[in-house]
Each structure stands twice: as C-alpha cells, then as structure tokens.
C-alpha cells in the first residue's frame, strides 16, 4: 500500500472572518507530481500556506506523513512566489541557497564548508553553477526562480511546495524546471505545484487538485482533469473553458 505524503482534513481557512478555503479534504500519495489548479482567488496559495503553517486554520488539520506539520517540518521544502522578497537585498546567490540549510543547522550555528558544498551542488542542479557569487539584483526572472528552487533543494526535503514556479519564466527555464520536477519524482519525492497554464497540466503532472474556495476534485490527471470538473472549477468563464476544452483535446490522443 502506498504511503500518504500529504493529507488535509476538514480544513477551513479565513482571513478576517472571510473564508478563503472551505472544508478541504484531500490526500496525496507519496511520489506524485501534483498540480494545484484553479482561478485567481481560489485559494491555491492559501492551501500551500496552510500546509506550511503560515496561516492559522479556522478548523481542521493538516498532516504530513501522518503527523502534524510542527513535527514534520524537516521533511518540507518551500518555494514562495518570486515577488515575495526584495531582490535588492544585499546577499549573493549562494547566500540565498545557503538559507535552505538554516532549518537543519538550528540556532546559532553558521553554515560552513559542508553547507557551501550542498549549496553549490544545488545551484548546479538548476544550471546556475556559475552564478554563486553574483549579487541577486543582477538576476533575470527565470534565474531568480531557479535560485529559489536551489534553495528548496538545499532543504533536502521529502515533500515540496512550489508557489507558481512557472510565473514569468522563459520556455527554457520552464523546461529546466519540469526536468527537475521529474528528477525529484524519480527519487521518491512528492511535489505540489501551484500552476496556471491549463494547457500543460496533463503534460507536467500526474495528479491534480482542482480548487475554487472549496475542493472540486483531487486525483490522477487522467480521471480528474475532465471538462466537467474544469467547468465546476472555473464556472461559466468562456475563455477559460475554451482553453480547457483545448487542454482536454490535447490529452485525448494520449493512451
């Protein structure tokens, strides 16, 4: 029987009494690449933040490998949205990646030679080996995204949460990130990714969470990513439905 990496029970999240997520119930088996899909304001980012304990739950609970987030923190890697930080901050690329090791280091201990080696290895994995000493201000959007990915890799986690890693990156970086995601899956990691492009969902992911304030559906892409479910997720928005229909058509020829 396959292990459950991530599980949410009856979770409701509210910002100042306005509910953002209602009664979410879902479970994700280990080793899956999971797309989190839904319209703007559907609570995709909130789902991730709730999983990481960054927002307070109004009710329900989140379990990571069967235990609470506090106990399993060391199993988690996080890639926040790129815009969430000040890219003029006086640190180098390697400094940022080193931050991934801080959780393991604990209080007062400074990153040393071993940590620097980890950081450089992670930078290599995302194709940024030559950039270790660069000031982060000099990076392009896709490079910033890859630095954030390297930092999450340095956390050496089992379960990764990525918030819109494909936002504003070029085709080559997108391909590199997808390759990296597949490599993570083959080494048994579970990865949840907030994703916007319906066209690529069935190419990139093997599991999908359809979200619009409540959970519309959660399961393998083949059975869950259907026109019917997308209609429920996006309501009557025509343009998006067209896109969805296109996405389904693309999916059809595949076995």
């Amino acid at each position: 029987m396959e292990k459950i990496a991530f599980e949410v029970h009856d979770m409701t999240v509210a910002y100042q009494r306005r509910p953002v997520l209602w009664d979410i119930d879902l479970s994700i088996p280990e080793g899956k690449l999971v797309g989190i899909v839904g319209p703007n304001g559907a609570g995709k980012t909130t789902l991730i933040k709730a999983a990481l304990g960054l927002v307070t739950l109004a009710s329900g609970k989140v379990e990571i490998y069967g235990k609470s987030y506090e106990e399993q923190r060391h199993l988690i890697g996080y890639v926040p949205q790129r815009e969430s930080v000040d890219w003029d901050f006086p640190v180098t690329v390697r400094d940022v990646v080193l931050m991934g090791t801080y959780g393991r280091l604990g209080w007062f201990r400074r990153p040393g030679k071993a940590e620097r080696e980890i950081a450089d290895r992670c930078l290599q994995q995302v194709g940024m080996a030559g950039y270790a000493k660069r000031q982060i201000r000099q990076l392009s959007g896709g490079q910033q995204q890859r630095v954030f990915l390297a930092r999450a890799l340095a956390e050496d986690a089992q379960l990764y949460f990525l918030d819109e890693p494909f936002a504003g990156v070029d085709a080559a970086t997108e391909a590199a990130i997808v390759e990296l995601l597949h490599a993570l899956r083959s080494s048994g990691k579970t990865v949840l990714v907030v994703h916007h492009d319906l066209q690529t969902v069935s190419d990139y992911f093997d599991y999908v969470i359809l979200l619009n304030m409540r959970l519309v559906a959660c399961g393998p892409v083949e059975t869950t990513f259907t026109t019917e479910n997308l209609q429920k997720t996006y309501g009557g928005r025509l343009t998006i439905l067209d896109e969805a229909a296109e996405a389904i058509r693309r999916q059809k020829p595949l076995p």
Partner: protein
Amino acid sequence: MISLSLSDKVMIGTALLGGMAGVVGSFAVLRGRALVGDMLAHAALPGVCLAFLITGQRNLLNLSAGALVTGLLAIGAVTVITRWTRTKEDAAIGIVLSTFFGAGVVLLSIVQKPTTSGNKAGLNSYLFGEPGGMLNSDLVVLAVVAVVVLAAVILFFKEFELTCFDTDFARSQGWPTLWLDLAMLAMLATVTIVGLPIVGVILMAAMIIMPAATARFWTNRLPVLLLVSGLVGAAAGLIGTQVGRGYPAGAAIVLTAASLFLVSLLFAPQRGIVSKLLSEYRLRRRVAEEHLLRALFELGEAELPAVPAINLSTLRDYRHWWSLERLLERARDEQLIEWDKNQVQLTPLGLRRAAQITKAHRLWELYLVRHADIAPDHVDRDADDVEHLLPESLVAKLEQELAAEGRLPTVLAEMPISPHEIHSEQGGTTL
C-alpha cells in the same frame, strides 16, 4: 572611566551611539522599518517628560524607561490603526508620530514652568541633543547597550538575515519570526532611546537611516554592510562632535552623516553617480569605436583578404557619425587604423578587432531575431563578449547558421593570432 575629561566622554559616547545605530539601523532599513525608528524617537518625548514629572530626576535610566513606555504605546497605536481602519501604514506612522510629539512638546512646556520642581537642566537636550551633559553613568549605559546589541547581532546574524530577507520561508523552517522581529524592534527601540539625549528626538531617525543607506553604496554583502554602517555611524559621531563644537551636537552629527552619504552617493564604485557616468561615457566611446571598425570592415568585406583604403566621404555616408574626426584620431592613436587625409585603412590589428566585433554583432543580431524568445533568461548580461554572453552551445549553433548564410567573418580563421606566425606563413605580407 575614572578620570575621563568631558570631551573624551562625549567622543566615546557619540561614537558608540553612532556605531550601534548604524548596525541596528541596517536591519531596520532592510526590513522596511526606517520610519519606525523616527516614530519611536518622536513618541519618546512625552514619555521622557512624564518620567521627569513623576520622579523629579534627570537620569538616563528613568527617562529611558518613560521613553520606552510611550514608544511602545506608539507602535501599538500604529498597529491598531492599520489593522482596524483603512489607513495605510505610512499615514498611520505620520499621525501617531506627530500626535505623540505634540503631546511631548506640551508636556515639556509644563516641565519648564518655574512652578515645577526638580533639576530640569538637560531636559531640553532631548529636543535637539546635547552630549555635553553626558554623565559617567550615561556612558556606562551606552557601553552596556552597545555590547548587548553587538552580541545579539553576532549571535543571531543568520536568523535576522533570514527573517529580513524572506519571513515566510523562515517561518516554514520553523523559526519564530515574530520573536526575531520583536528582538530587532527592541534593539532599534533601545538604541533610539539611549541616543535621544545625545542627538535629540527630531534627528535620531537620521542616525538610524543614514549610515545604513551610506553603507549600501559600498557593498553587496550583509556582514560587510553591517560593519561599514557601524563605522560610518561611529565616524559621524566622532567627527560631528569634534568639528561641530559650539553648535547643537545632534545637528552636527547628522550633517556629518549626511556628508558621508553624499560622498558615497557621488564616489562609490559601481553605485556612485560619478562611476555610473564614467562607465556610461566609456561604454559610449567603446560603442562608437566598434561602429567605426565594423563600418570599415563591412565597406571592405567584399575585397577580403585585401584591405582596401576607404574614402572618408564613403565612410561618412555609411551611417550617422557623431564627431567622426575625434573617433578617427583615437582609433589612429590605438593603431587600429591608418588615416591619411581622405583615406582610412584598417591596420592588421584593426582588421582582427573589426572582424571580431562584426562577428559578435552578427551573432547577437541572429540570436535576437531567432532565439531570443526561447531563452532570454540564459543571457548573461554582465559578460562583455557575445561568446560569454550566451551559452556556448548556442554560440556554436549561431555560428553555423551565420556560416551557412556566408556572413560569418572568416578572416578570423585565416588570421593567425601571433604576429610571428604571420611572417612565417604568409611571407611577411600585411594582410
């Protein structure tokens, strides 16, 4: 401590204050809290007056306790206003700052009425700062605070850095970011409050902001930034009290800090204005020279490997030039061309440079036309040469494409690098 003259005390005290304000201020500025220091300073005034009215004594600890209480009240007020109303944080800070300061000025006038008892000497210093009234005990307080702040920054460097840069990520790793934030705020409040009698309520914010802003010009690394910021603050304190004797000390210190900021703004490498203008000028000169060489190369390209002399008028018509004569003079000085009245000819060195430039230009053009949409993020914009600007595999591909069109400047391949080989292989002919 036993027998320090007053001027020594003032020197040590202001330097200590400037140093720690620089270090603590760096974190505040990076966290986007520069104005919180300003508010704390202004909001401290009513607390200072109240503490004096209650205790009737002017000693740093008493008054600082009062300052801390009203300072915290002010922070609370801003939090409440931004949380429960639609007022933005900067507006809320403005409201709270001026309200508390107004109350402070009223209380100060009550303190100064002849009917109020107690030794009021020095209370006025809280407005504009007066290190001359520094007691031995004040110096001890400053030293203790400096040691504690420095120790905290060294101990918690990694934690503060992470919290300032990416709070959510820090929390996801389990760091108590609320407490770390509060610790930084507490350091800011403490330094602000012990600095009040020296620099004054109104100018204390400058001590928090200016050293950090100055240091940012000189470095891209946080540890260095903290060090430089501390040194700038200490220097401002030292120089300000020395040079500004006879003037209000707070103003003298702040003006010194402002001068250091101005010098950095102008002369810092990379980020300074002068260096930016210089590099812009150099870039323009280089681009002009490259245009010249490329124009000469392209005008004679059909006749390669012979290098024809180009008529000056042909060259002038080839593209729009901006002071062509000066450009030609400079190129001649660099031995890239030979220029004889109306004829211009590339030298062997000039030809090689021109071929390189033309090749790079064409590669870059081709890249922009055909491949830019695929991989703009793979462009290394800091590199000078197109060969280093783009990934190697892409350059190889572009070269193939150029060669297929017959536009790859082939003279490079035919031209040996070393002049010695030119003689042996090509019989001494200049190409």
